[in-house]
């Protein structure tokens, strides 16, 4: 019990440090808000052109599509948590040894740092952009059930984002630089998660593959739940699949970390 209390106190300390660190880079947050807004504006213009004269595509009318893109892009802001960057950078320089010298879980402390980082992004990037969109952009209104499913699903999607970034960061133990891998991850997640195009609009064969990948659980699933396109048992099934991916992600992270510890090498003197 005492050990648990001490561990909780330790994670609390790390969370506190994460808050202050996340707030230290206000300029970067403003830039994120700006690039997200610009990206959204470009995507909405493209889809506006696609919808010219059409009432809907595969059951998505213009308003639903706008809502999908807005929710998807804002969720994507929360999938980026910088763990991959900081973790792989630490491994590259050998600075991860400092984390190992603390009486607290190494991966857990990295994940703990991500939470305040995400909270700050939610407060200073996502909510202002959402507020702006609610006032100036016509959006579909979700049902209470849809919003509730979305809230649960978004938490799981964000957890998956943390786990994926931990794994990419841990790849630093194998490859010297993870820049390429991180770039690839960004592109794959944007496309395969349905952030740019709903998976339902993709050709059946492509969609079939995408739906078997964990990325779909990061944007496509929560946003479809928000829009009421998955209800009842289908919603339960979708969230269940998300939970499975989270469990699998946790296992893979733990094994990857144990492997890295066993390898136990440190760059630099």
């Amino acid at each position: 019990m005492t050990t648990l209390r001490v561990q909780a106190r330790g994670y609390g300390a790390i969370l506190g440090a994460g808050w202050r660190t996340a707030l230290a880079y206000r300029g970067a947050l403003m830039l994120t808000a700006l690039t997200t807004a610009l990206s959204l504006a470009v995507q909405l213009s493209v889809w506006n052109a696609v919808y010219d004269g059409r009432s809907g595509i595969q059951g998505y009318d213009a308003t639903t599509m706008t809502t999908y893109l807005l929710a998807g892009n804002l969720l994507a802001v929360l999938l980026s948590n910088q763990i991959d960057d900081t973790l792989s950078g630490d491994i590259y320089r050998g600075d991860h040894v400092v984390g190992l010298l603390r009486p607290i879980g190494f991966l857990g402390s990295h994940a703990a740092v991500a939470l305040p980082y995400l909270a700050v992004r939610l407060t200073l990037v996502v909510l202002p952009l959402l507020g702006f969109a609610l006032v100036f952009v016509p959006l579909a209104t979700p049902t209470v059930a849809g919003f509730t499913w979305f809230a649960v699903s978004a938490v799981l999607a964000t957890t998956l984002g943390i786990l994926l970034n931990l794994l990419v960061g841990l790849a630093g133990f194998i490859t010297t630089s993870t820049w390429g891998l991180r770039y690839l991850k960004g592109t794959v997640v944007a496309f395969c998660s349905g952030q740019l195009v709903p998976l339902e609009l993709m050709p059946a064969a492509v969609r079939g593959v995408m739906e078997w990948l964990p990325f779909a659980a990061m944007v496509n699933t929560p946003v479809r739940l928000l829009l009421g396109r998955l209800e009842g048992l289908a919603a339960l099934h979708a969230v269940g699949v998300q939970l499975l991916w989270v469990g699998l992600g946790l296992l893979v992270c733990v094994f990857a970390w144990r492997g890295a510890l066993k390898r136990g090498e440190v760059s630099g003197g």
Partner: protein
Amino acid sequence: MIEAHELSKVFKVRKMRPGLWGAVRGLVSADVEEVRALDGVSFSVPAGERTAYLGVNGAGKSTTIKALAGVLTPTSGHCRVAGRDPRADRYAHARTIGVVFGHRTQLWWDLPVEESFRILARLHDMSKEDAALNRKLFDEVLDLGEIAHRPVRTLSLGQRMRAEVAAALFHNPRVLLLDEPTIGLDLLLKEAVHELVNRVVADRGTTVLLTSHDVADITAICERVVVVDSGRDVYTGDLDDLLRQAPTRTVRLDYSGDISPESLVSHVRHYIGLVQVEIVGRRRIKVEGPPDLATPQAVLNAVSGLVTVTDLVAPEPTLGEVLRALYVRTAEPARGAR
């Protein structure tokens, strides 16, 4: 308190081929080279003792410290710190040890120094009283007050190192591992670090293992020495005993008298034998040779009746000289074996 038994560590290092073409070839095939950083190092440090762990660059000092800190897995052999395998219970081990890696920071880069100490106090589950007591001590010795409110990333190397040493000692560890703890510090700050370590060690009985290229760190903090060379331990013993192992001693003599310097040199050389004698100034000679021959008494006897001695100096051999001789001595058998 610290035990290392036949520790060895082999790193696999990818060899980089020179030039652009070499880099392109490296994309398809890579040569991997094995580097033996530790080759069966054994030593022990009793509780409360302060030991210097010395060696030239690449001798395996930092690798040993990392193995003892539990952040690196030895290829073979084992070590125990405070009765515990460093990798068996990482959290308990982390509470037992304090570590300074001179070129890495354990402080939070974007946060003020005092915030880092607050976090460390919570991480190590320190009572408010203990944390306040240590803060007061570190403020007093290392003058941390002036940098307390500045983010770590804005500190100079010297300022950061002060905070790093304080951070390593903050949770009252039983074992302190110091890897180049005074790198980048000026003379006064080095002395402050020595004072802090010595005060804490004296008050709390902390066991210290120090690696440093700075002889002042070693002589100011440590009483025992372990010397490693090419991944193996080549000397373990008291620092004073090591200093006595100097292969040569020097005696400098100032004199007055009518004898020509050349005649005096010749006479002293002939009288003592097997020593080098040279003129190093006006009416000043230097006698250098084996410690049992080049003694002040032997020099005095040699010049007795020839000159009036105005000054006689026999400086203690420096640790640097002794280590240099030790490295040369241990390298010779290795060369002979080849």
